[in-house]
């Protein structure tokens, strides 16, 4: 089973109060140097069968009509690869 990720973010021109609230809180928590924060959604889809072009096309359509509201949001569809080098996985205690 393969995983496809759909990232959905508010369009840049749309006010993102959640991101702003996070950004405003950061200095208070002692985190400086973050110029901007945007908060969006991440969908992880477990796909039955191969993730070929036609499957991707279907997922793209699903994202466009359903997972994102394109009046306000942009989205990106990605086939998940194994964790990249730069990624630092977070664990909880």
């Amino acid at each position, binding site marked *: 089973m393969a995983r496809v990720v759909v990232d959905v973010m*508010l369009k840049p*021109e*749309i*006010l993102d*109060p*959640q991101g702003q*609230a996070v950004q405003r809180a950061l200095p208070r928590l002692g985190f400086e140097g973050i110029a901007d924060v945007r908060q969006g959604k991440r969908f992880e889809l477990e796909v039955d069968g191969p993730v070929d072009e036609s499957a991707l096309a279907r997922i793209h359509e699903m994202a466009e009509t*359903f*997972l994102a*509201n394109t*009046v*306000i949001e942009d989205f990106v569809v990605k086939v998940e690869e194994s964790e990249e080098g730069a990624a630092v996985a977070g664990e909880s205690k």
Partner: protein
Amino acid sequence: MTARIGVVTFPGTLDDQDALRAARLAGAEAVSLWHRDKDLKQVDAVVLAGGFSYGDYLRAGAISRFSPVMETVIEQAKAGMPVLGICNGFQILTEAHLLPGAMLRNNHLHFICRDQKLRVENATTAWTSDYEQGEEIQVPLKNMDGRYVADERTLDELEAEGRVAFRYLDMNPNGSLRDIAGITNAAGNVVGLMPHPEHAVEPLVGTGRTDGLGFFTSILKKLVTA
């Protein structure tokens, strides 16, 4: 003879009983509609009531918009049937593109429940004809995702065509652009708003005001005289 007003129940709809009650109090025959049925039971108008259909999961209204009943509602609305979307119903109408724009999380990020003052900016729609143009009314408001947004061009167009039907007065409770509380389509048959007129139809109950009854008497008059 009176008119039949249908109220749709989606899974998670909360204010359907209130909307049915409001329709009854206005003198209409109130009819329950079920999300899985395409059949609108020959109603003359439809109310999409408030609540958290599908838990507001994904986006408020996003899942309900694809229900069987909405297929017929969308079709009929385009053919001129009066449709009122209240709160979650408004969200469903924007998701269904029957009304432009979209609803986002309140700018303060909290659910807000308050007695809200509004101005009726368009008293010519199917649902507002019993109000005076510019009349100020006060009805409960309660929502999590009530911030109306649309691009500038759409907003200008709405303003120019008189399609901003309601505006928040005194305070903007959710960050809606241009204080927009509700809008109408160009034909005036499809109206959506965040505040809850169906909660303001009886003295004593709720805030004790009856300012919301006009929505239901408006539509009734229109349908019965039609």
